[in-house]
């Protein structure tokens, strides 16, 4: 009897911790979002949706996520496959590739700002090469395409490593027999990749996609440092309403929207990428 209860006792601290520091604030945030002034209702959501930056924030957030997440997955798969074929020095290459994992959001943003600002490294390089006559601006409201590309590049640089690490872990678990069998039947490398590696990697890809997508919907510091006021996203708007406009209700409404989007994305991944038990490697 007692030994059956032990696991629950061991789980108790983490459950208490999550309840106090995650669940309670979550309930409070949702309740804040639905209390405009003294009334219960949708007034915070109406104000959020009526705001001039709301539409931009939604469009910007989704465009970045839709471009950057598939891009990161493709890059990470490519990198993982390359790693697999390395005979020597795999660890050191993997180690170098994971450096961005240890760099904070804000630091990454500032690094790229130093590269892309008017007097930055990129302009210096282009100028030395004789490609531009003077400083070019990349991050202004007049250059939305360049700004968007800059954010995609910076985000890919910063956060591909997490996808890579998950995929590499998955690749290492793949049994060699399937590949060898495919070789026997004369499969091309591309066929091996699409017919064997990818389907077997589905659980890892699912994990990587969920993690990356949820985090991408929450992007903030990098976008703020590169785009400032020019590239509003959902979380930066939540920050703006909380700390600049000092309206906690609307900020909470944004938080609820971000949470719902993340939940929906997670559910979609769970459903679309589910692997039947019998297909697990």
């Amino acid at each position, binding site marked *: 009897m007692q030994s059956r209860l032990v696991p629950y006792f061991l789980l108790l601290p983490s459950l208490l911790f999550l309840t106090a520091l995650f669940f309670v604030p979550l309930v409070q945030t949702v309740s804040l979002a639905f209390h405009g002034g003294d009334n219960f209702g949708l007034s915070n959501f109406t104000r959020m949706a009526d705001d*001039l*930056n709301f539409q931009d924030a939604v469009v910007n957030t989704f465009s970045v996520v839709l471009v950057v997440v598939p891009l990161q997955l493709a890059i990470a798969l490519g990198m993982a496959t390359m790693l697999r074929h390395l005979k020597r020095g795999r660890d050191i290459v993997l180690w170098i590739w994971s450096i961005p994992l240890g760099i904070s959001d804000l630091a990454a943003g500032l690094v790229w700002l130093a590269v892309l600002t008017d007097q930055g490294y990129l302009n210096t390089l282009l100028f030395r090469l004789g490609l531009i006559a003077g400083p070019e601006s990349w991050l202004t409201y007049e250059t939305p395409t360049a700004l968007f590309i800059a954010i995609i590049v910076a985000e890919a640089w910063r956060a591909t490593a997490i996808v890579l690490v998950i995929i590499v872990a998955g690749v290492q678990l793949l049994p060699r027999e399937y590949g060898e069998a495919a070789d026997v039947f004369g499969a091309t490398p591309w066929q091996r990749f699409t017919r064997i590696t990818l389907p077997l990697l589905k659980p890892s890809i699912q994990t990587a996609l969920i993690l990356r997508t949820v985090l991408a919907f929450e992007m903030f510091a990098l976008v703020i440092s590169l785009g*400032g006021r020019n590239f509003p996203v959902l979380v930066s708007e939540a920050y*703006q309403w909380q700390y*600049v*406009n*000092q309206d906690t209700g609307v900020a909470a409404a944004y938080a609820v929207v971000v949470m719902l989007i993340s939940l929906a994305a997670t559910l979609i991944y769970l459903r679309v990428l589910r692997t039947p038990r019998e297909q697990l490697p």
Partner: protein
Amino acid sequence: MTQTKFARRSLLLSATALLAGADAACAQGSMDNTVFLSTQLRPLEEAQNVREVILKGYAGKVDYVVDEPAPFAVRVEAEMKSGRNTSSLLGALHGELQPLEAIGALAPLDDLATQLKDRGIPAPLMKLGQLGTGHQVYIPWMQATYFMVANKQALPFLPGGAKLETLTYDQLAQWAANVQATTGKRMLGFPAGPKGLLYRFFEGFLCPAYTGGIVTTFRDPAAETGWANFAEIWKHVNPNSTNYNFMQEPLLSGDVWMAFDHVTRLLDALRQKPDDFVSFPAPAGPKGRAYMPVLAGLAIAKGAPDPQGAAALIDYLSRPEVQITTAQSVGFFPVVKAELPPNLDPGLKLAVAAISATQNAPDALPSLLPIGLGAKGGEFDKVFMDTFQLIVLRGQKPHAVLEKQAEAMRRIFAETGAPCWSPDPPSTGACQVK
């Protein structure tokens, strides 16, 4: 076991004793010393400067205590209601003292005002210190404001007949256009970044300069002209402006040649390269050279334990030499007539010159920081930034935008009931957008 228990208990006891001792010492200190409670000069370094540099020459003993604006107001009110005052002298911004006057927490200072007449505090500032009551409620302490700085390389491009001290918004537009025509670059800059103070430019400079008011005249035809003209000026503004928070940085790097900002956000540029820059007041519009004074005042709490000490401190802090020390050590400027020493840091000298030129301009039109908005201050600022974004960045028609934003403005005043402040005419109830 018992030994550790004993050790623990004795540790606890000694800790309690230490705490109690500290408490007693604290109480003892506030019995003898004049307590000076301030919302200004809060950062550790500045507070230390107040204690060790500014108050060094004062004969009496002072406890300099700082608090953020919101807890400051709560504390003063609580002390008044409980009748157990500890703070004698209160130092805060004009807008922070006004609500304290409204609840009757401040003692009248008319005698002190007469006594300090020879200090030469400008009459308009003294009048602000009356908070519209007819009695002196606070004595102006120190001030700051916003002004413009230009790189000397930009001066040859000034339009014919234009002078820096009497610049108008139209001339500023022409000046920036001339610079762009020759250099091919947009060299005018505004702090429109996420942490920039551009909304203060609209609230205290552009809108009152065109309309003579802030809230009541928000959607005046004159306001439409002002915004339309600013959109014209913006054509010559460096597009990186929406990333600028402190204009001293792009000024120093040479990305902009002319810039507007708060003195503390320009001072670095002036201090590092005083020979490269000139400083001058913000431009004037049809209704005058509107500017936003940031004025801190000194008041004495009603029921203060040491009103004589507080009055003596006000006398001390408003001495010209102490005011100069204040400017040198913390970057806030004198309110009294003070002869600045010839060896003053040349950067500081430039800032002082611009502030004094702003105040003493014949067409000067002081327009104050928002008063009585409380937590809605952020939304008030947002109205101006949204208007800017829609008219200037997105090119929408000023008329429609101002109509829509006027609704947001009305809502803020309906919720707070805040009365109008200068230069809007005084209102009996909440301030109304006409």
